């Protein structure tokens, strides 16, 4: 990606096309974020890091951080396991089938998360289809509760975020020449070897952006956990929401927001970097 033209965009007038977007993001995103950050550092007597010290020295808050990261990690993994093969099916499907598949992936995005969360409530309840299925095939002796459990939350959230995993992977897969894998086969590579040494490295950019999308959305989700798991399972987002809305404690709210942002950004950036390195060494 780094070519000799790397410095030239600054002289290229095309770069000016980004000006409206940059201004927009500065006004509605960067400045408020800066304001939020300053708010978290402002105590009654000026600059202070006390809010961070007291937040991080409370073991309960570490549990909240753990809840947030664990659920986001599971959601991302489930989305990847379901989404990765689906992206291949989508990319290799015939024209008509591909349209049908794309519509069925994209259309659900137009339904709000609240509606989906309520639908999951029906699916996951004790006489819902999941429980009936598990009892029917003999995995469960009797219906058990799935609703308001971490499993239920992960299932529901993965359903809502799945398109954001499939689409970036699909966009990469459709550019890969299927013959590459066949070429590997003629050279005697086993299917597993071909997958780990040809297909996976080539799809890695799509996987990285899919993981980044899904992880950052699930680490910050607010409505879905409040409907699918309730008040007894706190995440950083729900804690932030109540600090502003109920406790009217702007300092705790902005401190939590900054911690969430730092965690999410560093995990996304870190895993991207790691994936690129691993991908680079594999090829």
């Amino acid at each position, binding site marked *: 990606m780094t070519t000799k033209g790397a410095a030239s965009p600054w002289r290229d007038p095309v770069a000016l096309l980004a000006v409206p977007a940059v201004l927009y993001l500065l006004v509605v995103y960067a400045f408020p974020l800066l304001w939020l950050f300053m708010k978290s550092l402002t105590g009654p007597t000026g600059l202070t890091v006390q809010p961070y010290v007291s937040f991080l020295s409370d073991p*309960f808050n570490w*549990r909240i951080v753990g809840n947030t990261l664990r659920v986001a990690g599971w959601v991302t993994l489930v989305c990847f396991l379901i989404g990765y093969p689906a992206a291949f099916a989508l990319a290799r499907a015939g024209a008509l089938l591909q349209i049908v598949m794309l519509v069925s992936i994209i259309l659900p995005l137009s339904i709000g998360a609240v509606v989906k969360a*309520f639908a999951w*409530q*029906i699916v996951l*309840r*004790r*006489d819902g289809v999941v429980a009936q299925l598990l009892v029917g095939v003999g995995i469960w002796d009797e219906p058990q*509760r799935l*609703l*308001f*459990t*971490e499993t239920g939350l992960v299932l529901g959230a993965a359903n809502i975020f799945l398109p954001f995993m499939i689409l970036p992977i699909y966009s990469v897969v459709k550019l890969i020449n299927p013959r590459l894998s066949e070429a590997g086969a003629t050279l005697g590579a086993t299917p597993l070897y071909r997958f780990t040494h040809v297909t996976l490295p080539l799809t890695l950019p799509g996987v990285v952006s899919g993981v980044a999308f899904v992880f950052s959305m699930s680490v910050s989700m607010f409505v879905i956990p*409040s*409907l699918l*798991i*309730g*008040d*007894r*399972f*706190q995440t950083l987002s729900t804690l932030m929401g*109540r600090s502003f809305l*109920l*406790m009217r*404690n702007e300092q705790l709210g902005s401190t939590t927001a900054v911690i969430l942002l730092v965690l999410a950004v560093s995990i996304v950036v870190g895993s991207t970097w790691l994936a690129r390195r691993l991908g680079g060494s594999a090829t």
Partner: protein
Amino acid sequence: MNKSPTTRSRTAVLNRRTILAAAGAATAALAAPRILHAQGKELVVGGAASHKGFVETIIAPVVEKKFSCKVVFEGSRSLVNLEKMQKNKDKQYLSVVMMDDPVMIPAVAEGLLAPLTAAKVPNLAALKPGTIHMDGMWCNYLQPWLGIAYNPKAMKTAPTSWADVYDPKYKGRVILPSLQNTEGLANLFMAAFLATGKPMAEAQKDIDAGFKKLVTIKPNLLTAYTQMPQAYNLLEQGEGFMISSAISQVALERKAAGAPVEIAVPKEGIFAMPSGVALVKGGPQPELAAGYINEMIGPEIQAKLSAATYSLPTNKDTPVPAGAPTNATIFGIDWKFVADNRADWVKRWDRDMAM
């Protein structure tokens, strides 16, 4: 640069407020003594968005006819009303506020309310004990009550006691409001009452005992909700059997709509929810405002209002509407104590009630 849309709309609001205040001042100056019967006056009342229906169909017609005035209702939320009063402290445009009791406390502390007196509001004398607060800074015009909502299809016998929700046979079937929700406080106080056996006025101060009892409900908990529609959804589908501490108004509206919902009056008693009304200090039309409150707690409006909202009247001479509990013990809540400690309780709730 041009003014942003926000700035412009704020200017518009300020202009309207300025005009209202100026109009109020002009009327007051012109028609000083016999203000109540002058023509074309306007009274601005702030309340919750959910109050709009009954203010406009039940209260306003009576008040407008009696005082030949126009009632303008601004529906938002209790906290928004508080902010409106704080921001306009020198030039109030609201005359009356209808807010939850917990929000009245900071309003009193900031000197935003004017006391109600028997001279200005004679119907105060007819109110039930415990419904006039902080020496008349506000009074309750209604008592929506809290009982146990249940699904009669899922439970053949109705719950009879607040202790029933702790019964192990209801494993995973009980829904509680979060402590963030005002109605959620009732479970904490009732837990203290059940654990200590003290009278409610004392028991509700023993929060530690309350929490120790409340955690024992955890195996029975289906969920603790913050969004009430979800709780009713679960109850009506039969996934949950009971909502412990449900608001009469909500449960009985669902029942009236044909949903399988009933509300039980436990033998220990029921809680009264806070529906307060107060005079804004320095607000325009103070006498008209007092007249509005007087009518609100008078027999005519009380009868209509309590029936329409499935709540208890606070005027002791008004009959209890059909279907409402007639001789149950009604527990009051010390809202000052709540306001001082709520943040700590919510913090403890998070820890103790976590999955």
